[in-house]
């Protein structure tokens, strides 16, 4: 079927109405970012949406040769707004949603009667449970889970033989979830915990990092690497070079596992980066990448199947033939047990890629990318069976 379709497409459809039209809604819950000590890195107002817009452009360029049209509408729901009402309206227009919203919203949308048979992409929620016991058959994930990020970091540390880890955790729920993922992953890769501390929010790090951090880290047992779990990147940036012991920092500062970063250049990534910057006027971030990958995955499935039917596209995305060229050096595909996009995870500093996980030597009987995050036996997801 693929061959028949892929064989030949003569001429251009330019000017005439597309033979097939796929509309996607980017659905966004506006969550005000928590206050941070530094205002060096403001959260862009179009975070995520700009990625979906680039995905639209990329798909349209391809579609023009095939008679496939694409459209994107964006819906921002305020913090107190009724996201389910907006989702219902969006689903009435099109069964394809890219969602940038907290996990609770995501599940409520996925459970709407109107969403059954639809195809939703989670491009912002890192909760590992969404890929396990809380999974939904109509919900795919293009953002890596916290477990994937943590495994990538631990592989990087293990391959350096930096085995002894101390951990500082921030006070917010996301920090604690991130710390839990780091600890679980450290245990998985047999790295040793060497003490933990919880960050005291009262410190003003801009003035006092040199006084506060040595004292704070002096209590930790000797370690090779100091991990910091601070998802909002509030205090983590002040830890490095202020520690009691001269030790590298990783996690939310220093060496960080990310879905995407402006420092990723290899494997043609430089082209994606410059396309994005030309369009958005700023570097591409992880949620932009996740939204781009979601729309591109849909576009790739439309291109290969010649269909805009959600069931057909879902089956193609989960089948063995789908692969997305995601500028990370390996083809990306979806895990058929929980809908998570398999992807390499770069370990980056603010200025360079240090390494890209999966690291060499971390083997898997099927796909080495499945050494990151929930492999089939680890996932409690049954909705995809």
């Amino acid at each position, binding site marked *: 079927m693929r061959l028949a379709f892929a*064989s030949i497409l003569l001429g251009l459809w330019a000017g005439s109405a597309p033979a097939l039209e796929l509309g996607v809604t980017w659905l966004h819950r506006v969550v005000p970012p928590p206050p941070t000590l530094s205002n060096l890195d403001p959260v862009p107002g179009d975070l995520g949406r700009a990625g979906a817009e680039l995905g639209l452009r*990329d798909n349209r360029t*391809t579609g023009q040769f095939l008679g496939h049209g694409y459209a994107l509408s964006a819906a921002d729901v305020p913090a107190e707004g009724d996201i389910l009402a907006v989702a219902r309206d969006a689903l009435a227009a099109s069964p394809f949603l890219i969602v940038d919203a907290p996990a609770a919203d995501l599940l409520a949308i996925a459970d709407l009667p109107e969403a059954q048979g639809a195809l939703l992409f989670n491009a912002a929620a890192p909760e590992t449970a969404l890929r396990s016991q809380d999974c939904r058959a109509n919900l795919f994930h293009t953002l890596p889970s916290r477990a994937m990020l943590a495994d990538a970091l631990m592989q990087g540390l293990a391959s350096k033989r930096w085995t002894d880890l101390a951990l500082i955790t921030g006070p917010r729920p996301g920090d604690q979830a991130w710390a839990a993922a780091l600890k679980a992953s450290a245990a998985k890769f047999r790295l040793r915990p060497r003490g933990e501390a919880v960050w005291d929010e009262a410190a003003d790090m801009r003035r006092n990092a040199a006084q506060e951090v040595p004292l704070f880290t002096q209590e930790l047992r000797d370690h090779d690497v100091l991990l910091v779990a601070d998802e909002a990147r509030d205090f983590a940036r002040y830890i490095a070079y202020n520690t009691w012991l001269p030790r590298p920092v990783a996690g939310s500062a220093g060496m960080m596992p990310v879905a995407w970063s402006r420092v990723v250049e290899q494997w043609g990534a430089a*082209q994606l980066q410059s396309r994005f910057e030309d369009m958005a006027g700023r570097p591409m971030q992880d949620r932009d990448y996740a939204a781009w990958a979601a729309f591109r995955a849909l576009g790739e499935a439309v291109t*290969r199947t010649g269909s805009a039917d959600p069931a057909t596209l879902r089956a193609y995305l989960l089948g063995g033939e789908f692969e*997305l*060229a995601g500028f990370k050096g390996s*083809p990306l595909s979806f895990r058929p047990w929980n809908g998570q996009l398999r992807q390499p995870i770069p370990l980056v500093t603010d200025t360079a890629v240090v390494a890209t996980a999966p690291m060499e030597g971390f083997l898997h009987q099927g796909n080495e990318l499945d050494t990151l995050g929930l492999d089939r036996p680890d996932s409690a997801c049954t909705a995809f069976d």
Partner: protein
Amino acid sequence: MTRCLTALCLILGLPAFAGGEIWVTNEKDNTISVIDIDSLEVTRTIPTGERPRGITFSHDYSRVYICASDSDTVQVMDPQTGEILHDLPSGEDPEQFILHPDDRHLWIANEDDAVTTVVDVDSRTVVAQINVGIEPEGMAVNEAGSIVITTSETTNMAHWIDTATHGIIANTLVDSRPRHAEFVKDDTELWVSSEIGGTVTVFGTESKEERAKITFEIQGVHPDRIQPVGFEFTPDGRTAFVALGPANHVAVVNAETYEVEEYILTGRRVWHMAFSPDHSQLFTTNGVSGDVTVIDVASRKPLKSIKVGRFPWGAAMRPGAS
């Protein structure tokens, strides 16, 4: 006195040796490394514009064209002196190009712009720009000069362009991230490599339909690491050498049966390649290890690694002085 000091040769503008040269563009060093085929050593390092990638010679080898991607230009260089003669208007981010058999028109893939630009190298003007898919890269022209192919990496297509009208006559889907294309067997076949798909697709030129798909398998190398990019054919058209990127091997493919006969170890992330003038040796650029592997074509064995600049990308042969 067959040898002279490199600097002296450069100053005097003398051709160094008679056996010919391999010119390699170093993407992250903004230079060309010139390898002498007799000594298998780098004899010259020539500065270029920013991010040099595609490289090709005019038919009489009096000029060399270089895609200076980040300088948004195609540079025209005198290969004797290494001097830049002038720049050509190339459109934005020229990555790869093909010189038409008329020796006069360069067909350029503008990677960041989703455009193929046609430039007249004599009048130094843009003749046409053709909208193609995202990230055009691979360029091929048939011997007759009637059809040019542009492959687009993110759109995953080969665009068939009529050189007379500059119009697209067909678009054929290929596997993910097509990188390189060549017409072979007297224009009866078109080969297209797909880096992420891990395949080479063979099209019949007449039907524009897929005739075969070549896949690769190397023991001990994960299938995802096998990423076909550049390839070259022996003059008899019977054998293809296919660079497999981060698999760090070149595959030797029987072009009649489409079977892989052998894999040859190279440096890391092998990209593009060029033959010596007598086709007895093949030179591959290895992007990550920053070197060139010299392969003995008859025995299909690697002979030597030659250190060049950082991230070597394109390769082109310049025959020795007659």
